[in-house]
């Protein structure tokens, strides 16, 4: 991010002159009070929103020149409410959804889906509806669905909301297991315990400005 400024309304600047970068394999956390622009920051990084001033670069290329579809192959974005990014009647179809539109053969998709189901401990849920499983499971399904694209970066918006201690621990272990693969992770969160335990770097947003903690 290079000198990024963003506002929804002209009079109200949400992010002011933000300059920062994230490396692969890094586990960064984005913290700050409600309305400080954490989710906006994540949306700017994925090209969902466009900066009013400044530029965002993904692997050296200006994000404005990359289509959302292409960004999605590089950056996986987990929404605050995972239900908003689930589109299929079964977990299995959900995980293979993106690949079914990429011209890949059924066998390859099937193989990949089975591998990911195992990696994300979703065995037994293959034929379940993503809307009728627990919140923790739904979140794992959303992550697994993103993961099939083998993104080099993950941005997770409030991933621990509504998770109990056991589920948080499972999520923590899952994310830790992704780091050795060189996947960068940015977690947007209020959960200090989760951040202290997992993040290598903490950025605090306050009054539209960034403060490295």
């Amino acid at each position, binding site marked *: 991010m290079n000198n990024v400024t963003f506002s929804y309304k002209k009079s109200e600047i949400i992010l002011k002159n933000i300059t920062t970068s994230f490396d692969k394999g890094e586990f960064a956390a984005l913290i700050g009070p409600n309305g400080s622009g954490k989710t906006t920051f994540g949306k700017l990084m994925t090209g969902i929103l466009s900066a009013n001033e400044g530029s965002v670069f993904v692997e050296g290329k200006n994000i404005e020149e990359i*289509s959302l579809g*292409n960004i999605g192959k590089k950056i996986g974005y987990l929404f605050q409410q995972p239900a908003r*990014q*689930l589109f299929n009647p079964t977990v299995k179809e959900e995980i293979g959804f993106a690949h079914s539109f*990429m011209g890949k053969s059924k066998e390859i998709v099937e193989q990949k889906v089975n591998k990911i189901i195992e990696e994300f401990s979703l065995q037994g849920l293959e034929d379940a509806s993503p809307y009728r499983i627990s919140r923790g499971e739904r979140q794992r399904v959303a992550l697994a*669905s993103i993961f099939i*694209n083998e993104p080099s970066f993950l941005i997770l918006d409030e991933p621990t909301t509504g998770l109990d201690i056991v589920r948080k621990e499972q999520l923590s272990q899952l994310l830790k297991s992704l780091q050795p693969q060189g996947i960068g992770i940015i977690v947007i969160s209020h959960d200090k315990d989760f951040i202290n335990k997992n993040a290598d770097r903490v950025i605090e947003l306050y009054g539209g400005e960034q403060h490295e903690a």
Partner: protein
Amino acid sequence: MGVSSMKLDPRTKLVMVFSLSTLAVFVVDTLLLSIVLIISIIVSNFFKEDWGFLNRARKFILLLVGIAFLQSIFSPSGEILFGIKDFTLLTTGGLAKGIRVILRMLVIIISATIMKGSSPREIIQGLIQWKVPYEIAFMVSLAIRFIPILGQEAKDAFTAIQLRGIEIDKLSLTKRFKVYSYMFMPVLSGVIHRAKELSTSLEARAFRAYPERTSYIKLELSKNDLLIMSASIVFTITMLVIYILLR
């Protein structure tokens, strides 16, 4: 002085919208429909409505033109204007029908913008004072409130689909339509979830516990309201009579 500065009762606005929409539905004459559209634009302009929504709805307008085009293909009549071999694509009658569809939809959309200045709370109160059962009036106001939310959710779902690595622009038309159909799942699930939460919350707050509901707001019709309401009704009846006589 513009009509907007008079602060009209929402019931007056409802009568105006109802009058214009009625004409749009019943009149099947291009010239009369054009007149109704011009009147809708003038009235909406009086209320100083923000026309920026037309820019936001430009994709919808394209859809409208598409529907009109399909209408003209599937109901051919009159002289053939354009065709490929034996297949007739455009006829004078079909084109006229297509234009009427566009005019009709524009009248309905533009006349509905008249209501934009009234808050859902005022509209619901207007309906209750018209003896519409308050449960139904409340449902109407909820529906109005949720339209922009549903629009945002559909937009979010579309973004989420693309962020799954699907490059929509590179897909064939059939696959593209298939992708669009997937958007309904999260939107519908959100609607059902929200409806469940709302109904529980309403029950918890004793909604419908009594047949009558006390309201802090009481709307009163002014002379201007009565005048505009009567003018709208007279205008609608006159236009319908002219239309019937001209047929």
